[in-house]
């Protein structure tokens, strides 16, 4: 790692600002923006010529009134949309300087008017040109660091920690990988609901079906929220916790504490060794959906902790109160409290017990710990180290341990990591490397954050959330019962999760494997239709009368499809619904098998990804193309101007490709050429993901083109999605863009030019290791960007 420090061994006088590139004179409108505009813009956007109704001749500095115009200039310049191709082009560095100046000025100008932070949003990460980051590194670049900050924890992280308080999750079993294990993501159930349930591990039966069960069992959904958009969602600067969320946290805390103390709130008759022991009168149908219709095993399964001791043992003592406070604090914040913190919460607890009785007092008195800042935000403040000559402080001890832990896990650090922090063995880059390596190679330490990255990067987890029009669903080969469709989609999302885990387990050419694998995790009963082929919109011929019960159970369809017939494959476990598979643990209806390679290749051809990029009625070729442009090619398109009426014509008897002809108008095509030709090759699948060779009676047109990718070797026409995927999977640039996204996810911010060395190192680590995610992560998590914090600095684009 010494090469990093050598690279920054620069004279101190050039390192005065964040990025000192060309900082020889102050950057102002007069010195920077005006000359740029005069040279590159004014001939078309001046007093005499005002193309597109845009003119700059009266433009001065950035202010609140002209902010919209400047925002447009920023995007056009940063994304090389302007000046037009046939005009003189500014250098990448000139573009970068102007873009950075504009966003900085917008921040200042709008500070009192709601602020400007669009450039810090994940969707704007690619506004920093790829070739600047992966080209020669400017000589006078300050070394990377990340602003000191607090990072609101992920909703799943919050939920998982609360779950740990009330559920005794099974330890990892290497013989049954894929089974739900302590520390795993809380997966949605078959209807897409994410929830933690009280007493789930103890339920032995109930009255009624799954809906009755879901209504009867008490639980809580994630309280914290993230934006519901495609792409990376959890940057450090994006979220806070609002009053409504805090109120719910307090309410949940009360229920959690009661459960920690006493287990399920139920009548004595609800507890038995087996359901048959329970009197028939307690199994009446009228009880369906009521709390008393659940039956629990007799032995306590919840974690028994100092908190339950405090409730259940006689009296109260300082010792027990302190133990309960310390236990709960560490479980919720992932670190032991300081003495002051113990003291503060102990005082609150005592006061509450004095005001009320013991039981109610404990509940009220412990609730504040659930609302401690560090139970909801993870601090990376680096308040105690000595700044280096660049003003950077390396994270250390607890903060560093928690940062490393949070890169993988939602629950507190394992004992080894915890002890390293306490023993002062977490001070240097090599200490971090040691711990990161250890964690990466230990499967018993669950790494839900790793899977979450692929969910956000690939966007395959939205299929069940796309609301389908009933008729469109049936016409595309779906079942008339739309609920089955959504369940199949949530199921396939879980299958894709598992496939990714299997690919990560092998850890070879990870990205390329994700894009091109022939393998699939498959549930024949629900997935065969979706992985099959759409044959014709005519109803299938009536099958001969059959006595075969299985054949009778096949759902009837009003169109003709050929369900997939895949090799048997090996059985694999998939983590789905906590709530549905009660009592069926150990069984799995999923297999790992292979897909026909003339129809599908990699995750982008699986219905989970395809349907995630559709709308109610049809495919969404623009969304698919945008995904490839952003996530694989590292490009971007500016926000749609508010004046654009972005609607395709409503022509139900025309193909999507034909309806998209409107985007070819000159004004639209400038942006749409970056998306449409990348998305249209996927027209070889319909909007439920079924493969097709015909569309509206004609051979389906799945041609497309890679235009202006930044890598001339990539550019050119493609016959279909499979060819497109093949080309992309081989591209070095695509791998670099993947690395950029990994950087963003794990650093919780967009990269800046200063991060170029970190990105280049990470890419080399990935490439030289043969596409190992472990190598990529080790490089990122031992980088300056991950380790160093700087006070009073905001990320610069």
């Amino acid at each position: 790692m010494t090469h990093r420090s050598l690279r920054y061994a620069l004279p101190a006088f050039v390192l005065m600002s964040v990025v000192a590139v060309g900082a020889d004179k102050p950057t102002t409108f007069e010195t920077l923006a005006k000359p740029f505009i005069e040279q590159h813009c004014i001939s078309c956007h001046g007093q005499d010529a005002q193309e597109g109704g845009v003119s700059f001749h009266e433009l001065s500095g950035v202010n609140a009134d002209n902010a919209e115009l400047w925002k447009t200039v920023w995007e056009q310049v940063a994304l090389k949309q302007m000046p037009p191709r046939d005009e003189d082009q500014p250098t990448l560095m000139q573009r970068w300087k102007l873009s950075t100046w504009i966003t900085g000025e917008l921040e200042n100008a709008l500070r009192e008017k709601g602020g400007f932070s669009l450039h810090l949003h994940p969707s704007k990460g690619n506004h920093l040109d790829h070739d600047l980051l992966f080209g020669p590194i400017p000589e006078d670049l300050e070394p990377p660091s990340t602003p000191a900050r607090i990072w609101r924890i992920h909703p799943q992280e919050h939920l998982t920690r609360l779950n740990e308080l009330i559920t005794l999750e099974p330890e990892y079993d290497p013989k049954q990988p894929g089974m739900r294990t302590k520390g795993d993501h809380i997966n949605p159930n078959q209807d897409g609901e994410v929830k933690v349930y009280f007493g789930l591990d103890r339920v032995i039966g109930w009255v009624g079906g799954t809906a009755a069960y879901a209504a009867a069992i008490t639980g809580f959904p994630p309280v914290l929220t993230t934006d519901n958009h495609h792409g990376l969602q959890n940057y450090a600067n994006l979220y806070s916790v609002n009053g409504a969320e805090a109120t719910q946290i307090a309410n949940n805390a009360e229920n959690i504490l009661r459960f920690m103390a006493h287990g399920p709130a139920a009548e004595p008759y609800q507890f038995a060794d087996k359901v048959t022991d329970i009197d028939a009168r307690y199994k009446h149908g009228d009880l369906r959906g009521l709390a008393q219709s659940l039956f629990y095993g007799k032995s306590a399964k919840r974690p028994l902790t100092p908190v339950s001791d405090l409730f259940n043992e006689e009296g109260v003592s300082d010792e027990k109160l302190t133990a309960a406070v310390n236990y709960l604090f560490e479980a919720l914040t992932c670190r032991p409290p300081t003495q002051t913190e113990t003291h503060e919460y102990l005082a609150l607890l005592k006061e509450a017990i004095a005001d009320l009785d013991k039981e109610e007092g404990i509940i009220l008195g412990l609730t504040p710990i659930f609302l401690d800042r560090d139970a909801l935000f993870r601090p990376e403040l680096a308040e105690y180290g000595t700044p280096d000559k660049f003003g950077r402080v390396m994270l250390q001890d607890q903060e560093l341990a928690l940062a490393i832990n949070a890169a993988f896990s939602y629950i507190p650090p394992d004992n080894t990591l915890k002890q390293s922090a306490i023993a002062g063995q977490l001070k240097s880059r090599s200490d971090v490397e040691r711990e990161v390596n250890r964690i990466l190679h230990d499967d018993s330490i669950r790494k839900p954050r790793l899977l979450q990255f692929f969910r956000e990067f690939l966007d395959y987890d939205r299929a069940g959330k796309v609301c389908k029009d009933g008729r469109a669903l049936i016409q595309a080969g779906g079942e008339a019962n739309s609920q089955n469709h959504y369940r199949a989609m949530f199921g396939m999302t879980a299958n894709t999760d598992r496939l990714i885990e299997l690919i990560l387990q092998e850890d070879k050419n990870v990205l390329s494997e994700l894009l091109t694998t022939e393998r699939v995790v498959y549930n024949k009963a629900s997935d065969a239709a979706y992985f099959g082929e759409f044959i014709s919109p005519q109803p299938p011929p009536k099958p001969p009368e059959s006595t075969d019960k299985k054949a009778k159970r096949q759902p009837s369809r009003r169109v003709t499809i050929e369900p997939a017939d895949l090799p048997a494959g090996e059985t694999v476990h998939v983590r789905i619904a906590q709530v549905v598979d009660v009592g069926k643990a150990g069984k799995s209806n999923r297999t790992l098998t292979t897909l026909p390679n003339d129809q599908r290749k990699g995750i982008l051809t699986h219905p989970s990804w395809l349907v995630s990029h559709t709308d109610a009625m049809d495919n969404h070729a623009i969304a698919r193309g945008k995904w490839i442009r952003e996530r694989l090619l590292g490009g971007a398109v500016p926000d749609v101007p508010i004046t654009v009426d972005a609607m395709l014509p409503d022509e139900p008897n025309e193909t999507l490709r034909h309806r998209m002809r409107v985007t070819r108008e000159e004004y639209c095509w400038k942006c749409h050429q970056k998306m449409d030709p990348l998305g249209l090759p996927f027209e070889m699948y319909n909007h439920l993901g079924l493969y097709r060779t015909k569309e509206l009676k004609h051979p389906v047109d799945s041609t497309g083109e890679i235009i202006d990718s930044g890598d001339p070797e990539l550019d050119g026409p493609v016959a279909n999605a499979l060819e497109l995927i093949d080309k992309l999977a081989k591209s070095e640039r695509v791998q670099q863009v993947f690395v950029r996204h990994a950087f963003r996810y794990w650093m919780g911010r967009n990269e800046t030019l200063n991060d170029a060395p970190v990105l280049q190192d990470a890419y080399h680590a990935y490439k030289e290791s043969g596409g190992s995610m472990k190598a990529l992560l080790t490089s990122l998590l031992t980088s300056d960007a991950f380790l160093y914090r700087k006070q009073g600095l905001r990320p610069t684009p």
Partner: protein
Amino acid sequence: MINRRNVLKGAAAGIGVALGSTIAPNMLQAAPAYRSAPKRVIFFLQNQGFDPATCVPKGLKETCELDGVTLPEPISALEPYKGKINIINGLHGRHTSPSHSAFFGALGGYRGGIGIPPAGATIDHEISQLLPETILPHLCIGMDALENMVSRPTLATLSATGPGKPIFMHSNPNDLYQMLFGGIATGDVRDRFEARSNVLRKIEQLAGQHGQSLPEADRARYGNYVAGFRDINGLREKLESVSDHLRNFAPEYGDKFLKPKFETDWHDSLLELGIATLKSGITNVLTIGSGRGEIFGAWKGLGITEAGHNLGHMEQPDNPIWIKIRQYNCQMLVKLMQELESIPEGDGTMMDNTLIVYTSNNANKQHTSGENWPFILLGNCSGRIKTGQFTQLDGKRPVNALYTTLLHAIDAPRDRFNMDRNTASVHDAKVGPIEELMA
């Protein structure tokens, strides 16, 4: 004499975010084209569907006046109020996938379903942000089987402030009483209220301390968190500051709260609390979920021994059980109207400036596809809505069109509610409010 409006005007000012709300409301005042302006809207949703045969008077096929028509038995309690209601048949909610319940989709006008998080703000929340500001703009109460109200005192299935942001219904009337009237209570309730207030103040203080050393860029974001506690504490303090006024409206805190014999005792108590918040002017939108948006629920106090999902599997027309449940609903509606009529407001009464929207969270029946979704509107919303009428629509307009109509009725017009043009091209034949309903 206390002037209700002046007391509350002072109290409401400065409260940005109340419990259950996440957006600082920027209140709009109604345009003064009418003599008075709408001030409150009540939503009442019974679960398991609302069969048109139980609300459409026999033989009616087209829009007509209700004068001279006899209301069906399940809603006969509304007979004296015939001139003040509008029975609507022929809206649809196919796009909300109701089946067992459309959940958030019922008031949101989008796809709902068990466990599916809300896709956007629901109409009740939206309206609560547009009506004249009050201390606690939106209160949601949910009625269920007693056991479930005890084990799950708050539940969110019907209302939302935005995508993924559900609003919790209060179902334990004791907790709700403490929240609303803790400041004027005595004994145990008072003690708990005081202890809780004390802890919440400490939390605010601690949170504030932990924000002091933060980098500038994070201070505002963390400030939102601290502000959340300030609002929670602020709401309580605002309620306390008008406690003398509230005292006049607080329901009697007795056995119906503390020792309920049947769930209906708690249903009644919750309704009383809801009425108290409306009459005292601290709330402008009340949402009542009878059966709490799910497919269960019990009404043993009405002599109905069957409970839960079985009720949904029964046909509603001519079914003595469903007649009892619907009549109980209608008695609640009558009580709401009578109570609001008893309080003068402007030249008339509170009811004159109120609209009650009665329907089901599940269109017309159990296992429905949402092809028909009957509603009853009660009150004319300061003269904006036609009443004394049965309205038959053609099945081509969705519930969203009714919600758009409500927005027009409260002087916050817009073309559509929660429906983009793409979806509208399939599901809504027109743009804007339902003209047949506008006065």
